[in-house]
């Protein structure tokens, strides 16, 4: 093994971004709790925290980008970033897993049990004898407390269109990746731009769907476990699409500024990985929330 195979591993100097991030998150949380408890000035605290966090993210990523542009990063450090992103996405998978788990548990255990199937017959006869376990749940066990929706969300309207949009965006981001590898900068920018447009249209259509659900279908967060799992799963997915779109916009701006080379472009790849992850989560949502 030659000496140059293991280059100097870059260990950054002291940094104030992390502590700023902690202060920002703490402020954000204190504001958030005060909003929930309806205290005065809560929103001001909340927004101050949000601003600090946004400033921290901007500053921290700027520092990383400029270090990378100054060639401080060795291939070994690049691998550290790759492992970091892989395991971060795995943690996100597990986060969604908790909510999918809740959906499966409700559909296959708690709701059928309350309807009198299987081991919990007494639960049905004693507590909820008028309840019928039909998924999607239009009539809740206690309709006086949780008014069910008037209809269920169908899979083959807006959701199918949104599936198509996201799958197409997965293709365009791959086209952009190949363009970057072949150093075709115009094609790269156009394909990235198309991906961003598709992401934004997905979000707009999703917003329209939510509006429709709230105003015309009675499908809300408080319409029982169907609405709960529907909005929490699609909502967290939508939040991730939003973050992914912001990431893509930043990558596009960096591409326009001439960042990234056909060999070195981990920022681009990480964003593409994230985008594909969001894509896969949507497929799961389409199958288990809308379709089956």
């Amino acid at each position, binding site marked *: 093994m030659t000496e140059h195979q293991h280059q100097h591993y870059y260990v950054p100097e002291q940094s104030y971004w992390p502590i700023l991030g902690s202060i920002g998150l703490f402020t954000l949380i204190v504001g958030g709790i005060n909003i929930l408890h309806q205290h005065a000035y809560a929103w001001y605290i909340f927004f101050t925290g949000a601003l600090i966090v946004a400033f921290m993210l901007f500053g921290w990523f700027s520092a990383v980008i400029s270090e990378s542009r100054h060639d401080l990063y060795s291939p070994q450090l690049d691998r550290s*970033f790759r492992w970091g992103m892989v395991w*971060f996405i795995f943690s996100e998978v597990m986060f969604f897993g908790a*909510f999918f788990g809740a959906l499966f548990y409700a559909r296959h255990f708690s709701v059928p049990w309350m309807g009198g199937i299987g081991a919990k017959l007494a639960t049905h006869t004693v507590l909820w004898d008028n309840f019928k376990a039909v998924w999607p749940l239009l009539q809740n066990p206690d309709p006086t407390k*949780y008014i069910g929706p008037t209809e269920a969300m169908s899979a083959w309207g807006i959701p199918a269109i949104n599936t198509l949009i996201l799958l197409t965006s997965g293709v365009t981001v791959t086209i952009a990746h190949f363009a970057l590898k072949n150093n075709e900068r115009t094609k790269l920018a156009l394909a990235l731009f198309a991906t961003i447009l598709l992401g934004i249209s997905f979000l707009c259509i999703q917003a329209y769907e939510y509006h429709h659900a709230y105003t015309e279908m009675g499908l809300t967060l408080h319409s029982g476990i169907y609405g709960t799992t529907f909005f*929490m799963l699609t909502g967290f997915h939508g939040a991730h699409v939003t973050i992914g779109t912001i990431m893509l916009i930043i990558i596009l701006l960096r591409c326009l500024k001439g960042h990234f080379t056909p060999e070195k472009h981990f920022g681009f790849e990480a964003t593409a990985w994230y985008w594909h992850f969001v894509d896969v989560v949507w497929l799961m949502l389409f199958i288990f929330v809308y379709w089956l």
Partner: protein
Amino acid sequence: MSSIAIDPPDHPIDHPHGPKPGLLRWVFTTNHKDIGTLYLWLSLTMFIVGGSMAMCIRAELFKPGLAFFEPGFFNELTTLHGLIMIFGAVMPGFVGLANWMIPMMIGAPDMALPRMNNWSFWLLPFAFTLLISTLFINGPAPDFGWTAYAPLSTIYGPKSTDFFIFSVHLMGLSSIMGAINIIATILNLRAPGLTLMKMPIFVWTWLITAFLLIAVMPVLAGAVTMMLMDRHFDTSFFNAAGGGDPVMYQHIFWFFGHPEVYIMILPSFGIMSEIIPTFSRKKLFGYTSMVYATSSIALLSFLVWAHHMFTTGLPVIGEIYFMLATMLIAVPTGVKIFNWVATMFRGALSFETPMLFATAFLIMFTIGGFSGLMLAMVPADYQYHDTYFVVAHFHYVLVPGAVFGIIAAVYYWLPKWTGHYYSETLGKIHFWLSAVSINVLFFPMHFLGLAGMPRRIPDYALEFADFNKIASVGGFVFGCAQILFLLIVIRTIRGGPKAPAAVWEGAHGLEWTLPSPPPYHSFTTPPKVY
């Protein structure tokens, strides 16, 4: 492992960046040793805070009747004691050891992502500020036990529950980032020649622990997010009126909670696998089987969560499955215990303080493991559930298991960190006080539980008085003994006999090739391992 021949780095380390002067060094640092030190001090601080709460609990339980606290406040004490000890004392303690030791053990310059390492630590003081502040704001602090079961935490949860929820979010963020860093470091920064199957077992156990952390901390985040939504946005995850189920919370929580138990013990297994060979002056018996046993324990931990819920009315077939799967874990755990004993067998044993704690760990963790097997049996658990037997069980695995592991590790590596030997006499006094008092404290709880004393109550029937009194005395002695530990640590930092690079003659591994105390940046050029 111990067969590794080590080539020291070509040039003595001469890095221009030493520690920065001033207190802000600790806030801005990206150095794995600084961050490890911060973690360890946070852990010790939280151990003392959580321990004081335990002292209050034992004072209240000293005799029947309400002596000091309202029942509500007693519930707040048990809840915060649990949360602080788990998330504040044990987990940061292990992460601190990982930060200090992993780069030195694998021949790395630092952690893979040093700035993120700083953030992992500096989220924690804010998280615990949020959590502990609930004692000082209007209304009760979290009072539903560390498990925060719905509906105690949803419909009936006090306002401070929201502080609890967000502080758990911050702790989760910290753990996930810390774990990602550890995995990236181990997979990417090993010295050339140090293959996975040559890594010290401590590094192996941390690799697996980090995987568990990344897998389950997001699930806990999901659980408390659902709790938040049920509390404020009218969702019905845990409310049967809307088609949800309070037991669903328990499923999600324990899907996190059971791997969490192993998160708190696997690094301790790693520490034992370092200490026992050193003081037996023998190679670790069954290195490969240790790696596979640890991995099996980690995988099984995802498949046994409902054994915490036998009395919630699971279908019988489910209970039988979870009972058998749980008992299966005894097999890889037994392999580990066997290997440690086999390592000691015919070794040239000496009992310095770390080895004393390791020996106590072996015996007392096994007791905790056996009471765990008893609890795993469904029919028996119907009787034991939510009694002091459970309290005795998990304190036997957590205190002589996890906490003794951390203490043993501190004694073992303190001369490396500070360059000074600690006082062996004081260390031995600390050990004997702790080892005896811990049994006086927790052993009677088995009898209390078998006799039917429920957990989480401030008052009890007269027939439980004697054992409670004995347990409380043991508790006070154990608490005071830890003050001695604090003094020993401070004394060693300030001075003591000089320690050479190889602190213990029987120890092997890269960390012992560095001088004591090691340079600020461990290995700027990676050493070669054959």
